[in-house]
């Protein structure tokens, strides 16, 4: 049962990821990414990590991707975007980078996956995540918020200058 669910969800995840890369139409790509994020949330659910699943859907599918789709709708209203790619040569850089990522992933999977936390169920509940965030990972957590704040101020500065 669990294996069947995994195979099914994984197929949706991989399929939607492929769709994201293959589709020329930016809205279709963005919607495929939403499906992909949703299927990752479903994978979290099958692992019993309800909080992570909900957070994944709310933060990525529900907030960030809505902004993405919004931006695409504002910037590219028509279908002109399906022409030849003006930046094709630089995009070829994606090939070696992708190859390195692939090698790393294969090595990781072949090596038995990431090291598991010793004992106990996977820490996916609200309490476990909260405790980790405010103890072991307090510094990275606060650092991230400073980083996000800096990015936000930077965006405001750039937007103001252009206006």
């Amino acid at each position, binding site marked *: 049962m669990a294996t069947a669910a995994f195979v099914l969800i994984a197929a949706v995840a991989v399929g939607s990821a492929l769709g994201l890369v293959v589709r020329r139409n930016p809205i279709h790509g963005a*919607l495929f990414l939403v499906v992909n994020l949703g299927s990752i949330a479903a994978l979290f659910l099958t692992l019993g990590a309800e*909080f992570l699943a909900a*957070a994944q859907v709310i933060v990525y599918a*529900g907030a960030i991707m*809505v*902004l993405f789709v919004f931006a695409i*709708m504002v910037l590219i209203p028509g279908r002109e975007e399906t022409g030849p790619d003006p930046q094709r040569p630089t995009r070829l850089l994606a090939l070696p980078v992708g190859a390195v990522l692939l090698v790393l992933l294969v090595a990781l999977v072949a090596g038995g996956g990431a090291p598991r936390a010793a004992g106990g169920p996977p820490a996916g509940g*609200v309490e476990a995540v909260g405790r980790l965030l405010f103890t072991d990972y307090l510094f990275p957590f606060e650092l991230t918020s400073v980083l996000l704040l800096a990015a936000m101020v930077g965006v405001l500065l750039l937007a103001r200058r252009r206006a």
Partner: protein
Amino acid sequence: MTAIADLGIAFGRVAFVMLFILNMGGLLTWVERKQSAIMQDRIGANRASIFGFRLLGLFHPLADAIKMLTKEDFMPARADRFLFQLAPFVSVFFGLVAFAAIPFGDTLRLAGREIPLQAVTLDVGVLYVFAMLSLSIYGVMMAGWASGSNFAILGGQRAAALMISAEIAIGASIMGVIMWYGSLSLQTIVRGQGDLLLGWIPAWGILVQPLGFLLFVTAGIAATRRIPFDTPESESEIIGYFVEYSGMKFGMFAMADFLETVVIAGLTTTLFLGGWQVPWLYAEGFRFPWGAELALPHLLVVLLQVGAFTVKVSLMIFVMMLVRWTLPRFRYDQAMRLGWLGLFPLSVLNIVLTGAVLLLVGGPA
């Protein structure tokens, strides 16, 4: 045998929630007409009749459905065919599933079983409903984009912008409730509202989180995209994201708005109005603060609780309808300003205040 019984119970729980929200949503088309008529001193819908019975116009939703289903299903030539077809279904789907984690009663004990009265028991119920609400926006955005019409795209953009500002405020305004009752599970939050303040006042969310209640209801109404927050639709200027839709597909967008109204009313009831709690009613019967007691059979208690939940949801819908037929539409920039400069900072203030109170006075005992 037990496996079949379990399956039946699971089916029953889901069916109850499904029928509850579908019927509420259908009924709302009638409520909308009748309530607005009463508010504006008119008679309202009363023409549809079956064999001469008019039943206060209650047949109008039926007539509507028949009309919508038999109309031409039009698609513009420039439309994105697949997304155009998919959009109304996405809208309705997320409106329907959002209600699943909302408890409509306490545990029902029947033939040695304990049946939790909600479609799914989730530890993160608040987040689940919130996530489904935030996903429902995709139907609207897809409709706006796939129609291949400038007015529809404008509507889709407005819907996205409105939804994001409303969502942030919703998320921030329920933080106070979550902090106070100390759980993300809607059932636990409702049980927490069964406590008494000062020995006789039910500790409902609206009493311990009055600011949070106002902020949540305002943001919730914005999330339903109905007047005064109907900038995505604005039927007097752009007609909005569903301008190209006809027949039942158009009807499904209207239906999704009603479903979301029911979901927001249900969530408000659960978080702020005590959910299925009846004041001073406990599992074994009433225990009044003045000392009197009234023992009641278990089934009656459960019925009272489910009834109380239904009444509270209906009351909340009534209030939302009052707002809808009282206020004019906010301009697009006004709605944005209200969300970002009004609701959101006040929600953060509410979080800080709640935290301070919890630190100084201590939470619920």
